[in-house]
């Protein structure tokens, strides 16, 4: 409980700072909203000519998009501290040492370090697109689906967090600026917004069995939409989301702890 209160104390400082200047703040959120919304608008705009993406209707793609984007946007909001672009300078400029001098755990400090409200723009457009998808697509709702939906969302959140944490841990070994890590994050979310069967078979296999991205978005979507897997893989895969999400998160955290130990042995 004390930890939660402390988190709130630290984060509210960041929130106040951002909301100080109303107009730039609103402009920022609008720009972020529109910037991420254009992707879907472009797809919708051309849909009159094509009617489907690999057999999926616009509404179904919208749902898939929401299932990927909402957890991603939530991660962007709450776990900004582990963003590669945010974390790498901390290590390089020695602020990480400052954090080690405070009687707080590193994860707590990083998680409370920033809460970029402008990313609400991305979150709101993801919710909007998901709502659109719900409106356009008839889903046979059941208790199981309703219960599973939030679990899927949290699993995807854990998965995206794991990607960020892994990327940031790399900072402990290399001083070089490896922008490629941002690609894993954003590129991954973009890729998951479309049904996996449009991609090359090796990509599909990789993102199902090696880095289980498909297990936290695509396969649960199949379950939600009552669609069969085009490749005849067992229906069980749709229910492995929590395992995939928590598993990758646990692995990422272990890697992180290893990285921190390494940092404390070698310094900067």
């Amino acid at each position, binding site marked *: 409980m004390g930890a939660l209160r402390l988190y709130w104390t630290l984060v509210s400082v960041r929130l106040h700072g951002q909301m100080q200047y109303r107009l730039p703040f609103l*402009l920022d959120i609008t720009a972020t909203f529109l910037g991420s919304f254009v992707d879907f608008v472009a797809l919708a705009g051309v849909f009159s000519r094509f009617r*489907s993406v690999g057999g999926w209707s616009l509404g179904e793609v919208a749902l898939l998009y929401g299932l990927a984007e909402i957890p991603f946007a939530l991660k962007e909001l709450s776990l900004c501290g582990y963003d590669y672009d945010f974390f790498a300078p901390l290590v390089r400029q020695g602020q990480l040492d400052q954090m080690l001098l405070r009687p707080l755990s590193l994860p707590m400090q990083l998680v409370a370090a920033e809460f970029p409200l402008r990313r609400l723009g991305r979150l709101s457009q993801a919710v909007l697109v998901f709502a659109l998808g719900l409106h356009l697509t008839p889903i046979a709702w059941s208790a199981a689906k309703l219960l599973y939906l939030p679990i899927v969302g949290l699993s995807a959140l854990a998965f995206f967090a794991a990607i960020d944490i892994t990327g940031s841990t790399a900072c402990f070994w290399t001083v070089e600026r490896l922008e490629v890590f941002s690609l894993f994050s954003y*590129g991954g979310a973009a890729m998951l917004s479309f049904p996996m069967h449009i991609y090359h078979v090796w990509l599909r296999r990789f993102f199902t069995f090696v880095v289980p991205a498909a297990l936290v978005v695509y396969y649960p979507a199949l379950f939600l939409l009552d669609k069969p897997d085009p490749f005849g893989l067992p229906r069980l895969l749709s229910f492995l989301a929590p395992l995939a999400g928590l598993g990758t998160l646990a692995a990422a955290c272990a890697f992180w702890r290893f990285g921190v130990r390494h940092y404390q042995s070698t310094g900067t």
Partner: protein
Amino acid sequence: MVPGVRTSPAALWAAASTYLALAGTNLRRQLTYRAANLAGLITNLFFGALRAYVLIALFGAREQVAGYSVRDAVTYSGITQALMSCVAIFGWWDMIRSIRTGEVATDLSRPVDYFWYWCALDFGRGVGQLALRGLPLVALYVLAYRITSPPTLWHWLALPISLLLGLFVSFAWRFLVSLTGFWTRDATGIGRLAFMLAYFFSGLLMPLAFFPDWAASLLRLTPFSAMMYLPSEVYLGVVRGPGLAAALAVQALWAVALYALARVVLAAGVRHLVLQGG
């Protein structure tokens, strides 16, 4: 071209060599950002492939849509990715920053024309990006996909003209957006919105021709389509004969229009700055 300076051949040549030098400096600078360029190239490749997959899935069994074959569409995804960084479609902050930090005062007091100064710098940057990220990306695309190439000699000749015009139009737009900083000091917020606008209408996400007919014809007439989309159409050969000439004409018209507008706004902006005390 340079207001207030007598344009003798010698003077023109002197000015031109200055601007060439500026462009060259910026071009060479691009060469030093090896790691960043490599990362950018990988990003371009990833997103290009992603868009290619989506386009292929959209086409399904169709052979032609709005004059594009599947091969055309895949090629399109590569060309647009290759041109992205050249026309700085996600934004260009150098001038905005210089205004915010006050460097603009120094820039304005130099014996070079403010517009052509930044234009020269941007051309250096753009050509550098084209060479370092654009061409390698196209090469990678050749290896990964069966891409098309310009169908006729006319298209080959028109392509560099179209690219240069596209870069110029893109620069003029970014220059205009950055000029708002003369009034608001920090144009970052406006910049984000304006650059996002260009991004949306640029055709990066979907070929503009794929939108409903009424929308597509309108979209092709904006300055934003002149930056990347029209050059892509020239490359693909989707426009032919009079259509090719029309595409170049649209680009040229926007180049002239935006240049004229930039001149007017710049003059007003300098007056405003001087009155404010810089």
